[in-house]
């Protein structure tokens, strides 16, 4: 057997080892989504609550907190994307095609993981340029300066989101990306448990139900914002 000597090397080059990396980094994103969504929904609590929350995020640990989180997420993202692309390429070349293809029970979402994943990646890049780097827009301008109840000068993130989603292409891309995210999660979330070896006959129904429910909450939660803003004019008449 030509197994590499170093246990870490052989683990990372093994099929199960690489899948574990994908699963763990995926789990980090699953948890991140819950936090991100909770913060986002504060938009419905009003301008002050949302801006205070944004201010808190950017000043947590004297501004270091947000960078620690960003760095951690970036590492997860790179690992997740790198290993899935690697695995997908290997998988494609492991199997010649049938002249007559058929599938028995694999759901559609499980068969488009790489495509839903790459769309989400494109979305993440766009999303960061849009709201974090604020490229190609005026979200750092005077219109977006505000003063919090506590007296600090702050960025009006609330207004930025309202304006951002009042433009239909941004709202539409967001909803499309969230739909694919949901598809990605519906297979990915249950897969995490299988790859970590936690799925058994007894736990499988609970895992599947939790994965479905979680996916639904994430989906409805995220799309509620652009839909409220674009379709129902939430926040638009205020300024």
């Amino acid at each position: 057997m030509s197994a590499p000597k170093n246990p870490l090397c052989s683990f990372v080059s093994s099929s199960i080892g690489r899948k574990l990396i994908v699963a763990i980094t995926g789990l980090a994103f699953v948890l991140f989504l819950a936090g991100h969504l909770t913060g986002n929904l504060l938009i419905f609590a009003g301008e002050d609550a949302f801006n205070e929350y944004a201010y808190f995020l950017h000043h947590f640990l004297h501004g270091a907190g947000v960078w620690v989180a960003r760095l951690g997420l970036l590492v997860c993202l790179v690992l997740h994307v790198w290993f899935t692309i690697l695995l997908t390429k290997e998988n494609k070349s492991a199997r010649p095609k049938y002249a007559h293809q058929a599938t028995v029970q694999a759901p559609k979402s499980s068969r488009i993981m790489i495509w839903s994943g790459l769309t989400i990646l494109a979305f993440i890049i766009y999303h960061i340029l849009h709201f974090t780097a604020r490229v190609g827009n005026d979200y750092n301008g005077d219109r977006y300066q505000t003063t919090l109840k506590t007296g600090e000068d702050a960025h009006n993130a609330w207004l930025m989101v309202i304006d951002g989603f009042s433009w239909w292409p941004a709202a539409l891309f967001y909803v499309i990306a969230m739909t694919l995210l949901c598809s990605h999660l519906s297979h990915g979330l249950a897969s995490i448990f299988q790859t970590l070896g936690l799925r058994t006959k007894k736990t499988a129904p609970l895992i599947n139900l939790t994965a479905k429910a979680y996916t639904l909450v994430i989906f409805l939660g995220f799309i509620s914002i652009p839909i409220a803003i674009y379709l129902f004019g939430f926040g638009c008449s205020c300024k």
Partner: protein
Amino acid sequence: MSFLNLTLKVWRQENSTSSGRIETYEAKEIPTSASFLEMIDIVNERLIKDGEEPIHFDHDCREGICGMCSMTINGIPHSKERGITTCQLHMRKFKDGETIWIEPFRANAFPIIKDLVTDRTAFDRIIASGGYISVRTGSAPDAHAIPIPKADADAAFDAAACIGCGACVAACKNASAMLFVSAKASHLNHLPQGAVEKDQRVLGMVRQMDAEGFGNCTNQYECEAVCPKEISADHIAKLNRDYLAASAREATS
């Protein structure tokens, strides 16, 4: 007795290096009581009579226990019927006038030898890498000499039902061998006789599986859907768990 007239689309391939192609054959007057392999026998007899090369396919026991009859029927290994091998499939499951696609099990790790015959010795090499227990072979011990909890005995027995046919690989879009490897590992890991060498077994078999060029499992469970012995993908979760634990122990020892 009723008869069927069918159109067959069969993969023909000279040898492992030549490129194959789908050929069309008429299968006339096939009794509904014939098995799928008997149907091909009937077609082959006519081909031989006409001086043509018969369709080559693997088979041995023809009763669902040897795992030789490797065929993908209409895109599904061993056909869409659940829990059977190709040799256990009967022609009464088909309709008169139907077109049936017959292809070999497709995976790079299972090179085609000829037509529908594939080389599945990769499985043997995986077994040789840990799918055994190192005990002296003498006379059989008393059945009750080693007490085994009923749940473990049942789980081991379910896993032991794997006949090594390779349908799981052929059904997987990644040509992953995880269901086979997990069944073989689970069978022995569940029992006290096998548990002694569990880590070594799991590491050895998974590494050999990777080296053979099987793909990586993406948890779609097509394997368990086509498995003639209905091996559950739960064994794959157990293999993942055992492999992670074995890797951790290897790294810290």
